[in-house]
C-alpha cells in the first residue's frame, strides 16, 4: 500500500480546499427550503415518528397533497401560493402506518394507505384556498371516508389516477382498477411483484410488467396492453423504481441500481439515457423546462439533474435548508412538480419536511 504523506497546511489553495470539503457537497444550483409539516405559529408539527413523507401529488389550486408513514399515517396538504404558506394535517387514516400514494381526482384526494390488515383507500375533499394566512383564517376538515380494500390482506405498492375518475392500484400481486364510485375493484392483471406507475398528462398510465417490459392503460379506449414497450435492458427493481412524466409526453424511469431510461411520448423507443450518480433512485420529477430532478443514494441521498437537451446528468449535491428552517435532508420518498417549475420533495425521514426546490434558471437564448 502506498504511503500517504501528511498534508501540509501551508500549501497554497488549502483554504479553498477546506471550504470545498465543508460546503461543496451541498446543493450547488438552485435553492431549497424545508417546510415543516404544520402551519408555523398556528399548529404543531405532525409527530416526528409519523412524518416520513412517502407520497406527494399536486392538487387543485396548485396545492400539494401528501401522505406519511411511520408509527401512523397522516394525509396532509401544503399551500404555498397566494397569502398562504402552511401544511395542514388532514387526518390519520384509521389502522394504517404507511402511505403508498396520494392522488387528486377533481375536488377530492384519495390516499392509498397500508396497515396490518392490508392496503386500503381513503378519500376526502380537497381544501379551498383559505383567507389571508398572515391575517386571520379558518379551516374546515371534512371527515375522511374509507373506500375499501382493493385486495384483501394485500399491501398497496402504488396508485395513480386512471385518466378518468378512478385509480389504478398496484398491490403486491395484482393490478386493480377502482372506477371512482363505490367500493368495487376490478382486477386488470396479476403480476409477481407490485411496482410504482406513472400517469401521463393525457391520462395514459404506464407500469412495469416485468424487468424488460412496460404495460400501458389507455383511459379513452379502456385498453390495457400487457407489453406496450420493451426496455433496452433488464432493470433492477430490488429497491423500487421511480417514474417522472414531463409536459411534452416524455417519460423517465429510474431503477434500483441508478439506470435512467427515457420513453418517448409515443412509446416504442425506450432507451437508457443516463446513470444516476448514486443508487438507488428514490424520487423523480420532470419540471416545466424538461429537466428531470430527483434523489438517489443510501444514507445520505444526493440530488440529480438530468437535462434532456444536453443528455447530461449532474450530481447537484445534498439537501440543506438554510432559509428559516435549518436542516439537512438525507432521505426522500417522492417528488412532484409545482406551478412554476419548483419541485416538492417529500422527506422520508423522522420529522420529515416538505422540501421545496427552486431550480436554477437556465440562460435565456435570445432570438435572432
Amino acid at each position, binding site marked *: 500500500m502506498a504511503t500517504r504523506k501528511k498534508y501540509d497546511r501551508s500549501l497554497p489553495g488549502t483554504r479553498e480546499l477546506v471550504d470545498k470539503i465543508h460546503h461543496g457537497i451541498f446543493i450547488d444550483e438552485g435553492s431549497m427550503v424545508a417546510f415543516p409539516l404544520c402551519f408555523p405559529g398556528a399548529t404543531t408539527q405532525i409527530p416526528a415518528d409519523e412524518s416520513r413523507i412517502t407520497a406527494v401529488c399536486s392538487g387543485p389550486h396548485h396545492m400539494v397533497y401528501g401522505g406519511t408513514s411511520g408509527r401512523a399515517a397522516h394525509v396532509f396538504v401544503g399551500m404555498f401560493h397566494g397569502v398562504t404558506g402552511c401544511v395542514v394535517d388532514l387526518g390519520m387514516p384509521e389502522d394504517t402506518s404507511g402511505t403508498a400514494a396520494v392522488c387528486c381526482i377533481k375536488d377530492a384526494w384519495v390516499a392509498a394507505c397500508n396497515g396490518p390488515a392490508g392496503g386500503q383507500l381513503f378519500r376526502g375533499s380537497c381544501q379551498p384556498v383559505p383567507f389571508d394566512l398572515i391575517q386571520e383564517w379558518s379551516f374546515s376538515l371534512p371527515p375522511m371516508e374509507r373506500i375499501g380494500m382493493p385486495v384483501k390482506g394485500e399491501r398497496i405498492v402504488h396508485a395513480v389516477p386512471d385518466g378518468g375518475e378512478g385509480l389504478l392500484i398496484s398491490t403486491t400481486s395484482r393490478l386493480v382498477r377502482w372506477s371512482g364510485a363505490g367500493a368495487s375493484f376490478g382486477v386488470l392483471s396479476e403480476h409477481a411483484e407490485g411496482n410504482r406507475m406513472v400517469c401521463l398528462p393525457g391520462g395514459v398510465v404506464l407500469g412495469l410488467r416485468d424487468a424488460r417490459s412496460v404495460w400501458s392503460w389507455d383511459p379513452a379506449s379502456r385498453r390495457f396492453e400487457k407489453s406496450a414497450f420493451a426496455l433496452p435492458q433488464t432493470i433492477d427493481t430490488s429497491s423500487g423504481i421511480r417514474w417522472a412524466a414531463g409536459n411534452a409526453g416524455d417519460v423517465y424511469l429510474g431503477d434500483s441500481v441508478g439506470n435512467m431510461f427515457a420513453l418517448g411520448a409515443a412509446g416504442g423507443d425506450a432507451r437508457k439515457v443516463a446513470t444516476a450518480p448514486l443508487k438507488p433512485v428514490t424520487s423523480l420529477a420532470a419540471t416545466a423546462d424538461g429537466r428531470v430532478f430527483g434523489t438517489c443514494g443510501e444514507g445520505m441521498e444526493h440530488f440529480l439533474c438530468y437535462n434532456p437537451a444536453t443528455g447530461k446528468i449532474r450530481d447537484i449535491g*445534498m439537501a440543506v435548508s438554510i432559509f428559516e428552517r435549518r436542516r439537512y435532508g438525507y432521505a426522500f420518498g417522492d417528488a412532484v412538480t409545482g406551478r412554476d417549475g419548483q419541485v416538492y420533495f417529500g422527506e422520508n425521514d*423522522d420529522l420529515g419536511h416538505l422540501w421545496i426546490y427552486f431550480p436554477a434558471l437556465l440562460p435565456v437564448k435570445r432570438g435572432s
Partner: protein
Amino acid sequence: MKLKSKFFQFTGHPLSDSCWSLSVGPDGRIYAAACCECQPGETVKVVRYNEKTDALDYLFDLDVMVGDPRDSGRATQCKIHYSFAPSLHDGIMYMATHLSGPPIDLPAYSPWYFWHDKERCFRGAVLLAWDTKKDSPAWSDTLYPKEGCRCLLHDEERGLLYSISYPRDHLFVFDIAKRKSRDLGRIGSINAQALFLDRRHRVWTTSDYGHLVRYDPDKGRVEHSPEPLPHNPVFQSGWHSVFYDVAPSPEGDCVYASTWIAAPRLIRIWPEEGSWGKVEDLGPATQDRDTWIPVCTFLDHCGGLTFAGDRKLYYVASRWFKPDTHQEKDVYKMDAQKPQGVIWQLDPQTLKRREIGVLERSDYFAQYVSRGAVDHNGDLFFAHVGKTPVGIFRVPMPASHKRPDAHLPLRMWG
C-alpha cells in the same frame, strides 16, 4: 472559599487540540481524552490522572487499540466526545469514538462530503470496553458505520448503551450482552451534546428547536416535548438551545443542564414530575453581551457541570472583557477579549451562585471547559479545549467540601 487550579498539559500528545471527554471511572479515578481533531492523520490518546505521581498516565492510542490506523487515508479515530460511560459492577469504562479528524493527506474532513467515498469515509464509531481493574481492553466493537458518536449513556441496570450519532443525529441503543445496535430514529440536524437517564429508564435529550426529546423503552417511542426549554427571549427562538452538559443531582431526582450554543443558559429539570418533567430556568450562565453580532461559540460558553462531595454544583462559565471581533482570522487570538474560565458554585437549596475561582493556564486562556468530574478523593477536574496542547485542570477542594467516595453516585453519561 477561593479555589486554585493546576493545569496538566497533554505533553504526551503535543498536537492535542481538545479534551472533550473527562469522567470519573468506576474506580474513582479521572479519565480524559486527549483529542486531536484538527491535525491530519492523528488519533486520540486516553489518559488518566495518577494521584500518586500527581501526573497524567497515557493509557493507549485509540487507533492502535482498535486497529484503525491514523495513516489509513480515512477520517481518523481522533476523539472521544462526551462518550465515557462507567460501569460500576464490573469496573468497565465504556468509551465511544467520534469523527472530524482529517485523513492524513487532507486538510479537513466532512462526513457529508465523504459519506459515499469508500477510501475516505470514517470507518465508524468504535465502542471500547476498558477494564479498569485489569488496565486492559475487555473488547471493542463497531457502534455504527460511517458516523461518529456525539455522546454516550449507560443504563447499567438494563445493560444498554444509548448514543447519538453524528452527523445524522440518530438515537441508537446498543445491547451490551448481544453486542447489537438498534436505530431508534432521527432527532434533527444539530446534535445535542448530552443524554441523561431518569429513574424510569427513560433517556432524555433535546431537539434542534430546544424541545426535550425522550425515549421511553416501555413505549418504544421517541417523543418530543410540547414546550421548548428556557432560552434568551430577546434574540433566541429556541433554535439551537440543545443540551451541552447535564449533571445529575446526588439524590438522582433532578438534573442540572447548560445549553449550547449562543447565550448558554442554566436549567434544572425534574424529569419525573408531570408528563414532561418540571423545568426551571436558572438564568443565563454567562454575561450580557451585544446582541447585534454573533459571538464566537468558543468565547461564550458554559460546561463542566458536576456535583462535589459537599453536594453543591460546580461548573465553569466563560467571561470576557471586550466584544468578540476576532472571528476566523485566528481562533486562538483572544488577547483583546482576555477570556477567563470562571469556576462557579451553585447551591441547590437556595439556587444562589458564587464565583469561587478562575482556571489558570500560564500560556493561554482557559475559558472553554467541556466536562467536569470529581474523583474519589473529592477533588474537582475540568477538561479544557484551547491552544495546542490542551489538557485538564485539577482543582483541589478544601477538606470541608470533601467526603469519602465523593464520586458516587456515578454519572452514567459523558
